[in-house]
């Protein structure tokens, strides 16, 4: 049996009478940096929310680290970064992280560590709402890195970041994923050129998984030049 950090089987989600995910199945391997790619509105966020266990689902099964998504034991093993940075605007960077660290029971020096990790050293006492959008997004990411998460679910974490920083964050993801005690990443993006940075890809469209492969495997099986081209060919093949 393959070692999966996330297993989704026949997941069905209906929101406001609309079927967002009709019957979705997908797996995320332990220690992979899996990119969930697809156009805006295809259901990426809904899938991520189901994995984290905050989405009301109509059917199917989602297991994370072998347990049903949303299980209380998963709450300090899974980190979730929403698209809009969810931090307290009226608190400083370090006050935000100190609070989240206390909630998950991380050691007291953990806020300092994650601040350095996301490149916000020197901004500790700045209020979150006085930071730029990209900096605020990094505070949100830092909060998810607190403690020792086993699975990190990141919804468009690199949007609006400068390219140098984006490269640094991807390097960080790979470092954590290949550590002795690996962290598994499930990262959504609507930017297809981020695909080459992932070890695995899930291509998604209109609530369905079009393809699940490595970037290289995807290009080989579709004969495409790049992931964007592969996506177009897959769409052409299914419609």
């Amino acid at each position: 049996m393959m070692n999966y950090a996330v297993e989704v089987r026949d997941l069905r989600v209906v929101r406001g009478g609309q079927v967002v995910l009709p019957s979705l199945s997908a797996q995320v391997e332990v220690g992979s940096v899996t990119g969930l790619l697809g156009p805006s509105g295809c259901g990426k966020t809904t899938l991520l929310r189901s994995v984290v266990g905050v989405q009301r689902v109509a059917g199917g099964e989602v297991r994370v680290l072998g347990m049903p998504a949303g299980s209380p034991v998963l709450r300090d093993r899974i980190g979730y970064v929403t698209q809009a940075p969810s931090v307290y605007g009226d608190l400083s960077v370090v006050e935000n992280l100190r609070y989240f660290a206390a909630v998950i029971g991380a050691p007291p020096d953990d806020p300092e560590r994650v601040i350095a990790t996301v490149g916000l050293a020197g901004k500790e006492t700045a209020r979150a709402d006085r930071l730029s959008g990209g900096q605020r997004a990094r505070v949100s990411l830092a909060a998810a890195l607190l403690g020792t998460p086993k699975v990190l679910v990141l919804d468009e974490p690199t949007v609006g970041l400068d390219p140098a920083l984006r490269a640094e964050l991807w390097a960080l993801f790979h470092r954590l994923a290949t550590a002795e005690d690996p962290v598994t990443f499930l990262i959504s993006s609507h930017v297809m050129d981020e695909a080459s940075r992932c070890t695995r890809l899930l291509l998604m469209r209109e609530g369905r998984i079009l393809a699940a492969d490595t970037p290289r495997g995807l290009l080989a099986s579709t004969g495409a030049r790049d992931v964007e081209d592969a996506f177009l060919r897959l769409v052409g093949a299914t419609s």
Partner: protein
Amino acid sequence: MSLRRTTATARRVLEQLRHDPRTIALMLVMPCVLITLLKWTFDSSPHEFQAIGAALLGIFPFIIMFLVTSVGMLRERTSGTLERLLTMPLAKGDLLGGYALAFGAVALVQALLVSALTIGPLGLSVAGPAWAVVLVAVLDALLGTALGLFTSAFARTEFQAVQFLPAFVLPQFLLCGLFTPRGQMQTALRWVSDVMPLSYAVDAMDKITSRSAVTGALVADIAIIAGAGVLALALGAVTLRRRTD
């Protein structure tokens, strides 16, 4: 529930307040200014101030905390921080308890200031013990906090949350016995006023100012206020869903 998470939440709420000195000033200074103004308007009829002043000592903390908490909790819902907290090992009780603890502390300072001003310089005569005035004021503030946490679930925007003040608070304000003694109301209104917790706050304050002994009836009023607060907190907990659409 865990003590560490509850106190961490209370500390965080207080830190947010500390970054907002204007709100602190409004919470602490405004009731003092209003009660002073009231005293002044009844300059020629001090016995009126005696009746209304005591009731307002119980009503101010309720209204102010209701407003502050409902908007604060709504911000928690709309900013995504609530969803983040609910994916973490935080019990709903930790969150609600943290809010209650933080605003309870502010309410204590507020009640001490307003009571000291009203009983001291403004000359409200209190036959019963002064600590009972402070206790009832703090419980009213906690009741306001609990109701604010609960009603924030029904607002989508801060604009709506503020409008819940007239919807939830003004009916209680009209029927709590401040304008007409509750015993003289039409039977139907009397029944409505009987199920509104603010009525018991005004009753309790009346009893403390007019009687020197702590009677069983006063203890019953205090128990009802506290019970209503706990009930509102429980209802608030029901509105905190880990899974949403």
